[in-house]
């Protein structure tokens, strides 16, 4: 009954002040919407354990995360097999390596197409807990000597490439020009371990090695229900200790950073994008949480203003004997109404954000077809629970701030219409805390958001030292069937020659065409690829190998520079002299020459690669080339130093091609196709795209996340500006009478202004002091994975605090001015 009255009373207040209601609901919707969105994003990508519908969590069992190559080290299957016997937290383990499979149907009507392939142990689908919808699973027998080669297809490959052919099971297909039997089709949307389209078996000797080997694979296991990752990692560290004793000297390189070798990671966290940008995701979480807090405080303040307006009324009610819990209940109902409407709008906003993000992911992974299958955001039951939790949190904060305020005053004093005493002190403390919290939260949110935003902006605009205009790029892959790769044999040189002949023939044929200017081959084109290794300079060797400089290493074709707009600065380009197997020539970039050699003269010096595994052969520097950058521009693993080796004696089965063309892009792409077909129809070209698109690839995740940050930043400025203004205007209005008293006692306008501005100054010093300290701490974490340039620092740590200072001073100046301009007699009677 009484609750009914409270609800009616609260509802009436909402309708009576539509502008107030709209503002409040909007702020709530922003806070809750961002929370819901960020939760969906982070739980899909990182935090919600991957289970594939089972009740057990998947873990990745891999080596140390290698920052300079931005991936987890794969480990020896021998140890993974050993592990299963010795560790209790898991029952079974499987492992895999990733690659590609060039598929062509036997009928040869459909052309060759490249698919993502997972090379796995035969128990892969058992550990995954999924069976094929057609055909059969891998068996151990498929691995026996002389067994027929088999392939498992994904539902999507079956549907698109094989047009849903019902007789697909048991039919034969060509995989990398080798006939294999299709044994089955997996269920729709199954792409385990990440973005697999086909599954093949690892070679038998890799699956069941009998002793430590150079083989490498990524392990996957499912945690026992009674276990945890922490427990598994404890067991793993014991295992690592035992294993170390038996490890032959030649594999000691497997142990990195002390004795670390095998490590278990929550499956989603092992993803290299997540690992690389983990700190960005965490900052997103921090920023969104702060915005939620900011929104709570803003709404709390709005409701507080209203309590102050109604303070006399409340005092009278208390005097008349209305129990305090009734007053609290009334205020909570008001908050409940606001939050309920806000939550509804938040849901709509978050759904919209999720749709945009999913679309961005689709675009981001379109070329490489490597979207991890769990990177699909949705508002699930857990997300709704979180939304519900956030609503309760918000109701409590926004309802309790004013309720506490309303009930903590000395009502007698108010009713005596008395002093600026009893009630004033508590109120001004509340206001002080509110203003400082606003400043502090705004500071952290704005600093982090702008630093991330500007960093990704500059990375996006980065100059990679190459011309990308009128260039297309592609990856060429030579079929193993016709282009052998035999290491350390007499045939090796002949194999290289065969591959080179194709590459150089294609280059000269293309360059003869009127619409092609130049052709380059590079193992990784500038703007992409990452990872460095150490090298030492003859005569300048460091004591410890990893105190030597490190560079990114690329293999390139002859006469490649002009096609990407680079040029030789010193010495010469590669030519016939460098093609002989033991020529050991190399070219370094300008930065290496300038930074590491006396007078920048690098030509004629010798360097060699060096690592924990030993050192390479001495290489002669024959030339210096202009600077270009590999890896994404905001990534700390991107290298400033590059060294280049001639392709001829290192020729690979697959390489990147860049083509400088005239005329249209489509025509250039067609020309590439036609010329490859005319040279060798078995060679596949894929990932054909413009150079600009290629460069954007590694940045796309950051670009997407930075758009979210932009939104957060804009909202933070909005909330901060309106919040700071409302809180300080509210607190100054409450002091109207005090100002009246001071003016009656002879304070001039300047005296009053000085008083309030210096109070604002103290709030700023406390708020910004704490805010900047926390921001610096977060930035410090961010810095481990990204390069933050000085302009970003300036905007984040100087411009943003200045903006806040300006906002606070303005928010103090305007309301104070208003009160000061009142006649003192009027100010004295203000209530």
């Amino acid at each position: 009954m009484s609750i009914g009255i409270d609800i009616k009373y609260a509802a009436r207040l909402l309708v009576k002040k539509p502008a107030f209601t709209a503002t409040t609901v909007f702020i709530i919707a922003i806070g809750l919407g961002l929370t819901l969105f960020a939760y969906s994003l982070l739980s899909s990508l990182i935090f919600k354990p991957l289970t594939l519908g089972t009740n057990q969590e998947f873990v990745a069992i891999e080596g140390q995360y290698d920052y300079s190559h931005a991936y987890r080290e794969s480990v020896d299957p021998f140890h993974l097999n050993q592990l299963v016997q010795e560790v209790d937290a898991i029952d079974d383990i499987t492992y895999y390596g990733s690659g590609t499979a060039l598929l062509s149907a036997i009928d040869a009507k459909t052309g060759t197409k490249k698919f993502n392939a997972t090379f796995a142990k035969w128990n892969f689908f058992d550990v995954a807990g999924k069976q094929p919808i057609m055909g059969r699973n891998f068996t151990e027998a498929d691995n026996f000597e002389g067994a027929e080669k088999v392939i498992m297809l994904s539902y999507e490959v079956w549907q698109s490439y094989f047009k849903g052919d019902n007789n697909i099971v048991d039919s034969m297909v060509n995989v990398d020009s080798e006939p294999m039997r299709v044994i089955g089709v997996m269920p729709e949307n199954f792409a385990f371990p990440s973005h697999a389209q086909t599954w093949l078996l690892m070679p038998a000797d890799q699956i069941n090695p009998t002793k430590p080997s150079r083989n490498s694979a990524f392990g996957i296991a499912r945690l026992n229900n009674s276990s945890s990752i922490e427990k598994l990692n404890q067991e793993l560290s014991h295992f690592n200790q035992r294993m170390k004793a038996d490890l032959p000297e030649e594999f000691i390189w497997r142990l990195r950073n002390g004795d670390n070798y095998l490590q278990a990671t929550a499956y989603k966290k092992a993803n290299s994008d997540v690992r690389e940008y983990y700190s960005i995701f965490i900052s997103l979480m921090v920023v969104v949480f702060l915005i939620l807090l900011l929104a709570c405080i803003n709404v709390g303040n709005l409701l507080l203003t209203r309590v102050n307006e109604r303070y006399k009324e409340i005092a009278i009610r208390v005097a008349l004997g209305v129990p305090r819990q009734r007053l609290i209940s009334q205020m909570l109902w008001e908050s409940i109404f606001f939050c309920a409407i806000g939550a509804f709008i938040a849901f709509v906003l978050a759904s919209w954000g999720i749709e945009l993000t999913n679309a961005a992911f689709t675009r981001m992974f379109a070329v490489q077809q490597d979207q991890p299958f769990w990177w699909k955001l949705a508002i699930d039951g857990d997300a709704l629970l979180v939304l519900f939790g956030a609503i309760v949190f918000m109701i409590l904060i926004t309802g309790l701030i004013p309720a506490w305020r309303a009930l903590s005053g000395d009502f007698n004093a108010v009713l005596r219409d008395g002093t600026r005493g009893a009630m004033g002190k508590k109120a001004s403390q509340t206001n002080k805390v509110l203003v400082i919290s606003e400043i502090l939260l705004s500071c952290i949110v704005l600093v982090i958001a702008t630093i991330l935003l500007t960093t990704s902006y500059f990375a996006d605009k980065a100059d990679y030292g190459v011309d990308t205009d009128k260039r297309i790029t592609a990856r060429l892959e030579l079929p193993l069937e016709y282009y052998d790769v035999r290491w350390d044999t007499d045939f090796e040189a002949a194999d290289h020659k065969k591959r080179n002949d194709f590459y150089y023939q294609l280059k000269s044929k293309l360059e003869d065409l009127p619409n092609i200017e130049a052709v380059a081959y590079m193992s990784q084109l500038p703007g992409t690829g990452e990872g460095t290794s150490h090298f030492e300079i003859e005569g300048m060797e460091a004591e410890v190998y990893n105190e030597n400089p490190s560079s990114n290493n690329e293999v390139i074709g002859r006469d490649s520079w002009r096609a990407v707009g680079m040029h030789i600065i010193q010495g010469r380009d590669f030519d016939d002299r460098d093609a002989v197997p033991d020529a050991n020539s190399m070219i370094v970039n300008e930065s290496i020459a300038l930074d590491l050699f006396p007078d920048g003269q690098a030509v004629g010096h010798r360097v060699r690669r060096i690592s924990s595994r030993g050192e390479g052969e001495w290489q002669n520097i024959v030339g210096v080339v202009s600077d270009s950058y590999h890896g994404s521009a905001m990534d700390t693993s991107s290298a400033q130093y590059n060294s280049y080796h001639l392709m001829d004696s290192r020729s690979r089965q697959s390489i990147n091609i860049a083509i400088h063309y005239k005329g249209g892009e489509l025509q250039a792409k067609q020309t590439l196709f036609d010329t490859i077909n005319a040279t060798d129809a078995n060679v596949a070209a894929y990932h054909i795209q413009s150079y600009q698109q290629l460069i954007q690839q590694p940045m796309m995740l950051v670009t997407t996340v930075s758009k979210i940050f932009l939104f957060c930043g804009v909202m933070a400025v909005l909330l901060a500006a309106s919040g700071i203004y409302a809180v300080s205007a509210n607190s100054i209005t409450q002091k109207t009478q005090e100002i009246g008293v001071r003016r009656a006692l002879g304070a001039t306008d300047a005296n009053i202004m000085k008083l309030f501005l210096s109070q604002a100054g103290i709030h700023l010093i406390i708020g910004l002091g704490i805010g900047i300290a926390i921001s610096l701490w977060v930035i410090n974490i961010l810095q481990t994975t990204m390069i933050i340039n000085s302009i970003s620092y300036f905007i984040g740590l100087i411009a943003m605090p200045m903006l806040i200072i300006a906002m606070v001073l303005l928010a103090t100046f305007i309301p104070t001015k208003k009160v000061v301009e009142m006649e003192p007699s009027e100010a004295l009677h203000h209530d």
Partner: protein
Amino acid sequence: MQHKNKANKVLVELKNINKMFLTDEVETHALNGVNLTIDKGQYLSITGPSGCGKSTLLSLLGLLDTASNGEYKLAGHDVSHLNRDERAKIRNKEIGFIFQSFNLISDLTVAENVELPLTYRSDLTKQQRAKNVQEALDKVDMGHRAKHFPSQLSGGQQQRVAIARAIAGSPSVILADEPTGNLDSKNAQIVMSILDQLHAEGATICMVTHDPRSAARSQRIIEVFDGKIVSDQFNSEVSAIAV
């Protein structure tokens, strides 16, 4: 004799003062052609029914508000056309206020409240200010409470602090708007004796009051009705004592 000394004896001179308030298109004539002269050292009471314009008159005297028209001379200077800061300076030096609701500032201690008007002056050192504060508090017998906050004091004590604040800067006139209105009779008695004491020491006091007993303690009683002064009497008893 009165005529001869006029120039230095007259402190306040109001000529044909009007005050009109405009709220929601409604004009309220709070004061209508008020003429008033107050001499130095005089103790004056203003009485009248509620809403007749007593507080408005006091606000104008205290330069807390400006008249709609008319002339106001304070110590021989025309103060009708001063700007906000000039008026603030005069309030600070020449006028001491005592309010019905005390109007102490809750964030400041008793001593700081009393010191407040002195801090707006540039001609006093810190030591001088402290001395003034101590003297003023001693006068109202509140010296022992200097470090307290207003909320820790009773109403009567708060009003005594407010009086100390009003006199700390040695103003030429003390303006009090129903200074005992919020107090019980015992505390009212104490406050009234302090005012008597101040008057005896030579202060000019102008007090609005409803209480005939309080009014009776003053030298001169003015009665306001509907924005006009309708009676102006010297209280023979009291003035006899003073003379």
